[in-house]
C-alpha cells in the first residue's frame, strides 16, 4: 500500500455513509447490493478512492475511482476482503464483477466460473476448482438416453417432492436428485438430505447429490436465500443456470430438468421461468410437474412447517411420506421442531 492510502471499514447502517457509497458506486456504473455483510473503503486523505464488499462468500460492489485505477487500490480492497473472509471461515471465495474486468481479477488470483453475457462475471479464487468439481460429479454419471435432474430444498421432504421424483423416475433411465446443501433453511441440510434418502429408496434409478457451491448456493443464486429486487433475481437465476449448463449438464449427460409447479414463492417462480428459457435454448427439456393436491390444496413444505409450528404434527401425515412423518414423531426431531417453532422465515 502507498504511504498515503489507508483502508477503513464502512458501516452501511450509517445512512450517511451508505448514501456516500451508493453515489460513489453509481458513478462507476455499479449498484449497491441490498444485502452485504461487510464493506471496506480505501481512502487517500479523506477521499474515498476504492471500495469493495461481500455477502457470505461472494465479493461484490468492487470499484475504484477512475483516476486512481491502475495504482493498486483494487489489490488493497481485495486483500482486505479476503482477509476478512478467512477470518470468518470462508476460504473458497467467489466474486461478481463486470464482464470486462476478467483480466484484472485474473491477476488477483481469481478465475472465471461462468458469465452472464454483458451483465456479470462470476469468478472463484481457485483455478480449476469448478472443473474438478465437475470431474468428481462425472464419476457418478450413468450413460443413458434419458437423464433427468431435479433440485430440491426439501424443507422438509413431502409427498409433493416424492411425486416429482416419481414422475421423473418413471419417464427416465436415470434421475439425479440434488438437495440444496446451503444452510439457510430451518431444517439442517443433513436432516433434509437424510429424509430425502429415506423417502426415495423405492426408486431404483435415482442418484442423490448435495448441491454444493455451484447449484442454488449463496454464491450462484443468492436471491433464493435473501430478499432481492426482481431484476436482480433474474440475473442471479441466469448465473446459476449458466453454471449448471456449463459444468453440471455435461458432467452427468443431463437431458432434462424437472421442477414442481410453484404457486407461492415468487423467487422460485421467476427462477423457473428463466430456467425454461435458458435450458431449452440448449436443448435440455424442462418439465414443470403440477403440484400434487390433497383435499383440493397443493402440498407445500411451508404448510408442513406451519403444522409443526402449531404443534399439529399429526396433521402432516397426509402431506409427507411415512419416513418424514416417522422422523418428526421421533425423539431425534425434538430439537428441530423447537427451531421450526422459533423461526418464522421464508425457509
Amino acid at each position: 500500500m502507498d504511504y498515503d492510502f489507508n483502508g477503513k471499514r464502512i458501516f452501511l447502517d450509517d445512512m450517511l455513509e451508505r448514501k456516500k457509497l451508493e453515489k460513489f458506486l453509481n458513478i462507476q456504473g455499479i449498484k449497491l447490493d441490498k444485502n452485504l455483510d461487510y464493506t471496506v473503503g480505501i481512502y487517500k486523505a479523506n477521499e474515498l478512492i476504492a471500495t469493495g464488499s461481500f455477502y457470505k462468500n461472494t465479493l461484490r460492489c468492487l470499484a475504484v475511482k477512475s483516476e486512481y485505477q491502475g495504482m493498486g487500490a483494487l489489490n488493497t480492497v481485495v486483500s482486505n476482503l479476503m482477509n476478512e473472509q478467512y477470518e470468518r471461515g470462508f476460504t473458497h471465495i467467489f466474486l461478481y464483477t463486470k464482464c470486462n474486468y476478467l483480466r484484472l481479477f485474473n491477476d488477483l488470483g481469481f478465475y472465471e466460473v461462468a458469465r452472464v453475457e454483458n451483465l456479470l462475471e462470476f469468478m472463484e479464487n481457485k483455478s480449476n476448482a469448478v472443473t474438478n468439481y465437475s470431474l468428481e460429479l462425472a464419476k457418478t454419471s450413468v450413460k443413458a438416453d434419458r437423464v433427468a435432474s431435479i433440485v430440491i430444498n426439501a424443507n422438509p421432504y413431502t409427498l409433493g417432492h416424492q411425486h416429482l421424483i416419481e414422475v421423473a423416475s418413471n419417464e427416465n433411465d436415470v434421475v439425479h436428485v440434488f438437495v440444496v446443501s446451503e444452510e439457510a433453511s430451518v431444517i439442517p441440510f443433513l436432516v433434509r438430505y437424510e429424509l430425502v434418502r429415506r423417502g426415495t429408496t423405492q426408486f431404483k434409478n435415482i442418484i442423490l447429490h448435495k448441491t454444493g457451491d455451484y447449484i442454488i448456493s449463496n454464491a450462484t443464486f443468492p436471491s433464493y436465500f435473501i430478499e432481492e429486487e426482481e431484476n436482480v433475481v433474474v440475473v442471479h437465476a441466469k448465473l446459476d443456470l449458466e453454471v449448471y449448463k456449463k459444468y453440471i449438464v455435461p458432467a452427468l449427460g443431463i437431458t432434462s430438468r424437472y421442477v414442481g409447479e410453484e404457486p407461492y414463492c415468487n423467487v422460485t417462480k421467476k427462477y423457473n421461468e428463466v430456467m425454461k428459457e435458458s435450458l431449452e435454448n440448449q436443448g435440455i427439456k424442462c418439465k414443470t410437474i403440477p403440484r400434487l393436491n390433497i383435499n383440493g390444496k397443493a402440498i407445500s413444505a411451508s404448510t408442513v412447517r406451519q403444522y409443526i409450528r402449531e404443534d399439529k404434527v399429526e396433521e402432516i401425515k397426509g402431506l409427507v411420506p411415512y419416513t418424514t412423518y416417522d422422523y418428526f414423531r421421533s425423539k431425534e426431531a425434538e430439537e428441530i421442531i423447537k427451531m421450526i417453532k422459533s423461526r418464522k422465515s421464508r425457509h
Partner: protein
Amino acid sequence: MKIIKNSMVGTLESSDIQIRVEPKDEVGIEIQLKSSVEKQFGKQIKKVIKETLESLGIDRAFVIATDKGALDCTIKARVQCAAYRAMGDAQKINWEVID
C-alpha cells in the same frame, strides 16, 4: 508437522505475496502460482516456497500463491506464517527452527 486447516497470509499489494496453504493427503508440496513476474522469477518463487515448508518439516501441503513481485525474504516470511497458522492455533512458533 502437519497442515490441518486452510490459512492465508499476505496481500495482493505490490511487493507482497498472498500465500494460501491447504491440507493435502498425499505426500508432496503442490504449488499453484500466479505471479506478475512469473517469467523472470517463477521457478525461484516456487523454490523458496517449497524450501521454506520443508525446513519446517512439512511434506504435504497445497499452496496457492498470488505474487506481486515479493522479494525472497518476504515470500519466506509469508510462507512461514501461513504454515504456522495452518498447523493450528496451538502451534507456537519455534524460533530455533525458523532461525
